[in-house]
C-alpha cells in the first residue's frame, strides 16, 4: 500500500507502543550464536531493559513457567531454559532504570491473592508506578506437582479463580485511602485512623481476611495485561485487562478482525472501546534492503529451527518420537497419532493434526522441501521482515487503522537483538509521527495512554 493521507484513516493520531518480551524459556532466542549472551546474568536483563528504555519503549516483559518443559520422557534440552523469578528480577531493574514499565507474568492458580498483590504493589512503589501484571492461569496437575496444593483446580475454574483473584488484588491495592499516612512525626498515629481498610472474602475458592500494607502507587496500581486467545480468554480481557497480548499481528486483515472482535467484547462488557491496548507478540527482522532483510530472516530461521528443533516440532505434531530421523530428508511417511491426554499440555484433535500433516506433505512435495524446510516455512510464523522505512510505513498503517496499538517484540538475539529496532526503526516511526520522541509521563499507565485509575 502506498502512503495514505494521514487523515483518511480511522485513527490519524494513533501512536505505536513497543514492549520487549524477554522470553526466557523458548527456542526462538538463538542461543547458539557467538554474540548470544548469558540468559540468566543480571547484566543481560539490564542491557535489554536499558536499550528498550533508550528506544522509548513502554514496557519490559518477563514470562513465567512453573515447571521445566519436558519432551521424550525427560527435561527438554534444546531450548533456552532457566529464568529468574519475575518480580525479583523486575524489582532489581526498578533500581537500574528510570521510565520503562516492568511487567511480571504471574500465575493466579499457584499464587495467593494477598501475597501476590502485595509483591506486585511493592514493585509498583519501588518503580515509581511502572509495574504491570500479565495475568496467566494454569490448571494442569503436572505443574501442580511443584506446589503444596498439587493439581487442585478444574479446567473450568481457572478463569473463575483468576477473576476472583484479580478482584481481591484490586481490593488490596485500593485498601488505603489517599493520604492514609500521617503528614508529620507529631501526629497521633502513623496512619490516619480509619484510612487503612480491610479486605475480606469468603467464597468456595477463597477465604481471606487481611489488612493491606501498602498505599496506592503513582499510577494507582499495576497495569493489567492478559493473553488468552480463546473466547473465554478474550472475554476475560475485555472485562478486566488494560492491555491484551495477541498472536494476531502479522497479517493486517487478521489483526483488524481480532481488534474488532475485542472492541465488540469491550462494548458488551460495558467498557469504552479505547480502554484496552492491543499488543501482538512479534519478531522484527531489519535489513538495509528488502533482499538483505530476507537473507537475515533466513539466517534467523536456520538458527531458530536447527535440525533437532525441527524434529522436535515434528515429533509433537506427529505424536511420536522422530528424534532419530534425518531433518534434511523428506517428511515422515507414517500417519500421525495423538497420544492420550497426559495432563501436561493442551489437548489436540486428531482431525486437525491429520489436516495439518496433509497440508505439510502437499506443500513439501510441490516445493521439494525437506522436513526442516517445511517446519521453517509452515511452522509458527514469527513476524515482520523489511527495511526500516518499509516496516515503519507498514506499522503506521496497522496502528492508524486500529488493527493494533503496538507490538510486544521478542528479540531473536539476547542481549543485542533490540539494537536495530531502537537505532534504525524507531527514528523512521518518529519521522512519520507515529512514535513518541520522548517519554511524556513517568508511569506505565501514562506511557500506554490509559485513563487514570478511578
Amino acid at each position, binding site marked *: 500500500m502506498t502512503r495514505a493521507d494521514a487523515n483518511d484513516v480511522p485513527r490519524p493520531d494513533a501512536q505505536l507502543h513497543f514492549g520487549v518480551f524477554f522470553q526466557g524459556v523458548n527456542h526462538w532466542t538463538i542461543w547458539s550464536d557467538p554474540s548470544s549472551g548469558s540468559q540468566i546474568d543480571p547484566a543481560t536483563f539490564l542491557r535489554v531493559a536499558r536499550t528498550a528504555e533508550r528506544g522509548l519503549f513502554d514496557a519490559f516483559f518477563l514470562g513465567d513457567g512453573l515447571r521445566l518443559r519436558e519432551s521424550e520422557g525427560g527435561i527438554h*534440552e534444546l531450548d533456552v531454559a532457566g529464568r529468574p523469578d519475575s518480580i525479583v528480577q523486575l*524489582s532489581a531493574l526498578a533500581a*537500574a532504570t528510570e521510565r520503562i514499565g516492568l511487567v511480571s507474568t504471574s500465575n493466579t492458580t499457584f499464587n*495467593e491473592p494477598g501475597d501476590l498483590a502485595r509483591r506486585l504493589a511493592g514493585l509498583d512503589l519501588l518503580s515509581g508506578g511502572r509495574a504491570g501484571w500479565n495475568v496467566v492461569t494454569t490448571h494442569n496437575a503436572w505443574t501442580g506437582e511443584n506446589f503444596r496444593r498439587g493439581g487442585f483446580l478444574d479446567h473450568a475454574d481457572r478463569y473463575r479463580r483468576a477473576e476472583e483473584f484479580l478482584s481481591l488484588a484490586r481490593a488490596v491495592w485500593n485498601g488505603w485511602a489517599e493520604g492514609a499516612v500521617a503528614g508529620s512525626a507529631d501526629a497521633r498515629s502513623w496512619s490516619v485512623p480509619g484510612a487503612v481498610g480491610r479486605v475480606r472474602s469468603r467464597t468456595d475458592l477463597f477465604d481471606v481476611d487481611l489488612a493491606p500494607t501498602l498505599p496506592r502507587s503513582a499510577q494507582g496500581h499495576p497495569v493489567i495485561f492478559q493473553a488468552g486467545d480463546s473466547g473465554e480468554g478474550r472475554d476475560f480481557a475485555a472485562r478486566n485487562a488494560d492491555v491484551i497480548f495477541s498472536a494476531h499481528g502479522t497479517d493486517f486483515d487478521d489483526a483488524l478482525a481480532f481488534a474488532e472482535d475485542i472492541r465488540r467484547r469491550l462494548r458488551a462488557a460495558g467498557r469504552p472501546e479505547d480502554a484496552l491496548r492491543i499488543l501482538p507478540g512479534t519478531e522484527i527482522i531489519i535489513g538495509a534492503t528488502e533482499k538483505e532483510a530476507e537473507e537475515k530472516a533466513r539466517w534467523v530461521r536456520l538458527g531458530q529451527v536447527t535440525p533437532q528443533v525441527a524434529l522436535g516440532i515434528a515429533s509433537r505434531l506427529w505424536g511420536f518420537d522422530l528424534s532419530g530421523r534425518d531433518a534434511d530428508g523428506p517428511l515422515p511417511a507414517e500417519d500421525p497419532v495423538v497420544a492420550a491426554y497426559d495432563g501436561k499440555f493442551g489437548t489436540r484433535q486428531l482431525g486437525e493434526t491429520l489436516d495439518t500433516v496433509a497440508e505439510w506433505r502437499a506443500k513439501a512435495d510441490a516445493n521439494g522441501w525437506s522436513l526442516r524446510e517445511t517446519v521453517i516455512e509452515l511452522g509458527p510464523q514469527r513476524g515482520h521482515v523489511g527495511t526500516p522505512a518499509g516496516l515503519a510505513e507498514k506499522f503506521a498503517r496497522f496502528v492508524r487503522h486500529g488493527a493494533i496499538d503496538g507490538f510486544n517484540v521478542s528479540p531473536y538475539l539476547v542481549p543485542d537483538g533490540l539494537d536495530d529496532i531502537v537505532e534504525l526503526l524507531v527514528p523512521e516511526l518518529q519521522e512519520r509521527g507515529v512514535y513518541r520522541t520522548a517519554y511524556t509521563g513517568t508511569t506505565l499507565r501514562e506511557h500506554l495512554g490509559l485513563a487514570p485509575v478511578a
Partner: protein
Amino acid sequence: MPRPALHLAVEIDGDGAHPAAWRRAAHSPGELLTPRRLAGVAAVAENAGFTLVTLDDSILPPGPVNGPASDPVGRIGAVERAAFVAASTSVLGVAPVVATTYAEPFHVSSQLASLDHVSAGRAGWVVGVEEDPAAARAWGRPVVEGADALAREARDGLRVVRDLWDSWEDDAVIRSVATSRYLDRSRLHAIDFTGETYSVKGPSIVPRPPQGRPVVLARPGLVPAGLADVALVGGATPAEAGEAAAAAGAPLAFAEIEVALDTPGETARERIADLERYAPWEGGPDRLRYTGSAAGLVDLLTELGGHVDGVRLRPLVLDEDLAVLSRLVLPELFVRRIAARPLPGTTLRTSLGLPRPLSRFTTDAAAALVEEETR
C-alpha cells in the same frame, strides 16, 4: 589463636528497632515506603562497611492497624526490597526474612535464587516463621498451629528450598551447538520431596545460584542446625551469647544486639526516653542491648569478637544510629582490625569465610573436576 574478623550485619526494616522510631526519622512518615528512602539507607549501610543488611517481613502489618500503639502499618515485601537494594549497591549482602509457614517453598526457592543472581552472589535468607494465626487468614490458608507444626513448616520449607537450589548442577547449561542441546538433562534433578503436609517434584525453574546456595540465617531451634549457615543467637551478656553460639551448632553464629547510641545532640538515654513517651522498647527476649557512646559499643563489639563470629545490630532509629555507626563505630573497628569491610567482587559466602557448596546431586565425575580446578 585470634578469631577471624567479626562480621557486621544490620537490620534495616522500617525506621528502626523501636516501634515509635518513625517519630525521630529524618523523613516524613509517608516517605518510608519509597524507593528513594530505601536506596538511601542501603547506601549508608554499604558505605559504612557492613557486610550484610537484613530486612524483616510478614504478610501482616508491622504494627496493629488503627491500634492504640500507633506504629507504622506499611511495609513493602522484604524480597522486593532486597532485590532493589541489591541493584542499587555493589558489595553489600542482602538477606530478606521469608517465612515458609504459608508460602510455597517452590516460589521461595525461585525468589531467593533469583536474588542471588541479581546480586551476583550477595543473597542471604533469614528463615522466618508466621506465628500469628491472622497470617493464615491473610494468606487464605488453614492455620498452622503450635510450635511443632510451625517448626515442621520451617524445616520442610528449608529442605525443599535447598534441594531446589541444588537441582541444577552448576554446569547444567552446556550450549552444545553441535547437538543443538542447550541443557544436559542428566545434570538436572527432580527433588521428589515428600513431607508430612505436601510434596514437591522439581527441578527448579531457576539455574543454580552463583553462591550455590544463598547464605541461610536462622535462630537456633527453628530449623535443624545442619541446614543453617549462620545461627542468630541471643544472650544477655557476651559470655551468654558465646554459650548460645557454641550450642547452636551452625558454622557461624551472630549475636543479636539492640543499640541506641549517643548522637552529637542527645544522649542515647535521652533519645530512648523521648520514644518511651509513645511506647515501650520491649525488644527481643534475652537479647543484648547497648545504650551509650560509640566508644563503649566499640569495646563491647571487641569483647564479643572473642565469643561469636558476628553481630546483627538493631539500631534504635536508623536515621540517627546508622550515622553514628558509620562515622564513629565501624571505622574504629576497621582500624583495630576487629572487623573488615567486604571486598568488591566477592560473594557473601566469601565475605563470611563460608565455602561454596557443591550441589548435593553432583556426580562423582563433576566433583572430581571441581577438586582438580581448585587444587
